[in-house]
């Protein structure tokens, strides 16, 4: 793609998300969603092959359906409240429709089927944008309407998302699908806390984006799309291999890494709201996620898989790919746990 065209498209994606986040008028929010969706389609189809076209088609159909549902919810809300401003939604039907639409955009269960298929069909760069940047806009609207959301519905979606994300990612060998199921599970954690403490959702989203960005950038450095190619990384980039180890454990939510912060905070908030069974189930289901992250780590960093090249250590050669901002991203993704006491300023 020519640089001017790429710049315009990326600017449109960012503008669309900004419009959604900064608007208080429902129509403008919908316009922002549409701009964002239409602009990202050429990014998804950057590598022009039939699989990418199928992935883009699936993404477009899902997002367009969600936008239609959102518009329907907005229209019903307009009918009952008489206003376009984003405020408390009094009508339960409008609230449920908007929640359903936004969860469809995020890829929460039971609207999660498109996430692994679309992520698998696109490049690593496009997948990174899809699983990080594209979550910001719907999450910001969920944040704004959080007092009006049906708690039971969202909690059910959250629980099923965590289950689906853990179970679905279990025996995957394709890295993009693993990250897609990881996204579904993390979205589930965010959805669980949004009605009780939306600020925790923002914290979880921030840390999730940092960890996912770092992981994708490490995969792009090695051009790995399968577990097998990742397991040959020890031969080429031993330092990157050890970074993957730490990042996977952080994604799995193990202390003393950053990924533990959102899980800890969310379980604490849920127990403060007299919920015992749901956070227990979520914590137990998170073990499934940890299992497949650990399996990835085992084959990548903890074992020296037999490689096909004749050289014992290929790392003697310099790698030519640039890893912009990778060191600060890895540090923020893994070493923020000691800063947890600072979260008291959010209260």
């Amino acid at each position, binding site marked *: *793609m*020519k640089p001017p*065209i790429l710049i315009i498209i990326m600017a449109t994606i960012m503008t669309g998300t900004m419009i959604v986040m900064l608007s208080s008028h429902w129509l403008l929010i919908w316009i922002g969603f549409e701009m964002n969706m239409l602009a990202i389609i050429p990014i998804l189809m950057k590598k*022009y*092959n*039939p*699989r990418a076209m*199928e992935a883009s*088609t*699936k993404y477009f159909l899902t997002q367009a359906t969600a936008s239609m549902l959102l518009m329907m919810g907005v229209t019903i809300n307009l009918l009952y409240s008489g206003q376009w401003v984003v405020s408390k939604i009094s009508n339960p039907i409008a609230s449920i429709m908007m929640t359903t639409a936004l969860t469809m955009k995020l890829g929460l269960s039971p609207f999660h089927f498109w996430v692994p*298929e679309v992520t*698998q069909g696109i490049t690593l760069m496009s997948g990174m944008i899809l699983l990080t940047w594209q979550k910001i806009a719907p999450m910001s609207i969920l944040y704004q309407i959080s007092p009006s959301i049906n708690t039971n519905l969202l909690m059910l979606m959250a629980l099923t998302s965590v289950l689906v994300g853990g*179970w679905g990612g*279990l*025996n*995957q*060998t*394709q890295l993009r699908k693993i990250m897609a199921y990881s996204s579904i599970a993390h979205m589930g954690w965010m959805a669980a806390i949004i009605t009780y403490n939306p600020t925790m959702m923002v914290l979880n989203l921030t840390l999730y984006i940092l960890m996912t960005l770092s992981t994708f950038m490490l995969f792009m450095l090695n051009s790995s*799309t*399968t*577990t*097998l190619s990742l*397991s040959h990384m020890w031969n080429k980039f031993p330092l990157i291999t050890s970074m993957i180890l730490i990042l996977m454990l952080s994604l799995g939510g193990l202390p003393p890494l950053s990924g533990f912060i959102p899980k800890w905070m969310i379980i604490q908030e849920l127990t403060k709201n007299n919920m015992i069974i749901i956070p227990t189930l979520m914590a137990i289901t998170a073990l499934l996620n940890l299992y497949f992250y650990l*399996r990835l780590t085992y*084959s990548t960093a903890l074992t020296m*898989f*037999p490689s*096909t090249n004749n050289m014992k250590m290929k790392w003697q050669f310099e790698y030519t790919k640039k890893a912009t901002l990778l060191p600060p991203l890895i540090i923020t993704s893994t070493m923020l746990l000691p800063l947890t006491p600072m979260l008291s300023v959010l209260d």
Partner: protein
Amino acid sequence: MALVLKFLNGTYIFRKCPKPNVASCPFLGTHFVDYCSSSLQKPVAAPGKTSSQRNSEGDLQGHHQREAALDITSPEEKPLVSFDKAIKDEIKDQFRRLKDDIVNHWIGPEGRPLHEVLLEQAKVVWQFRGKEDLDKWMVTSDKTIGGRSEVFLKMGRNNQSALLYGTLSSEAPKDGESGRSGYCAMISRIPRGPFERKRAYDWSQFNTLYLRVRGDGRPWMVNIREDTDIVQRKNQMYSYFMFTRGGPYWQEVKIPFSKFFYSNQGRIRDAQYQLLLDKISSIGFTLADKVDGPFFLEIDFIGVFTDPAHTEEFAYENSPELNPRLFK
């Protein structure tokens, strides 16, 4: 819809009649009666004559008739037709598959531990050792469009291979619209999970297709289709040639996946794309060399393996003159 078809299959025939080929596989179960009754009416070849005719090519037809004769059930063994039993068996089968799916999902990819899958360098995907292996394939020819080619699939000698044989005829059907004809194909059925859910093969860690075949010197086309959910991609496939030697010795054909070229609706496209190996739906062998007459292809097994010497990712280039949009 697939489940309904399976029920109709199960209720009427109850696995006693031979499975019909795609050419005569209509939608409704009642038509299977016609197929069975027509095979019952075919003349039965005398057993003494078949041994002397075995070596000539013409008795492939007689062999088929003998095959048909062997499949005719004697009056004492009438096919058991029971609707309730068939439905119960089908439901049990589907739930057993669901249970296996859940257990295999827990164990690892394809029901095997992950380290075993990652360390694997060669895998036999299809082999022909019994009748149940033939059920994973279907044969088709231009008979579906009114042509005169015939194709059959049966087990080879000692149940160690599959024999695909028949007669190719390039005589175009006289329907006023077809100008060309003459093809026969053998296509693998799409793997199905519980409740007939479509599945795909993941061959992403292999890079070469390995076939052990014995042919008659004819050129075949190996076609691979990817798994897809959109109807526009149903006609897309990736193909390469397989030239058979025709001798009495087995031939080992190795085709790297990087060599497969892309075609859509039967036409090779200017814009070529790499075959992505993580969602393979089916493989097929097609004969369409415009040479009328009998043919045969014996297949021992079809496998995939990693050839460490083969580092090519994609054999074809796209040209900016032919496809400028790919270079924008």
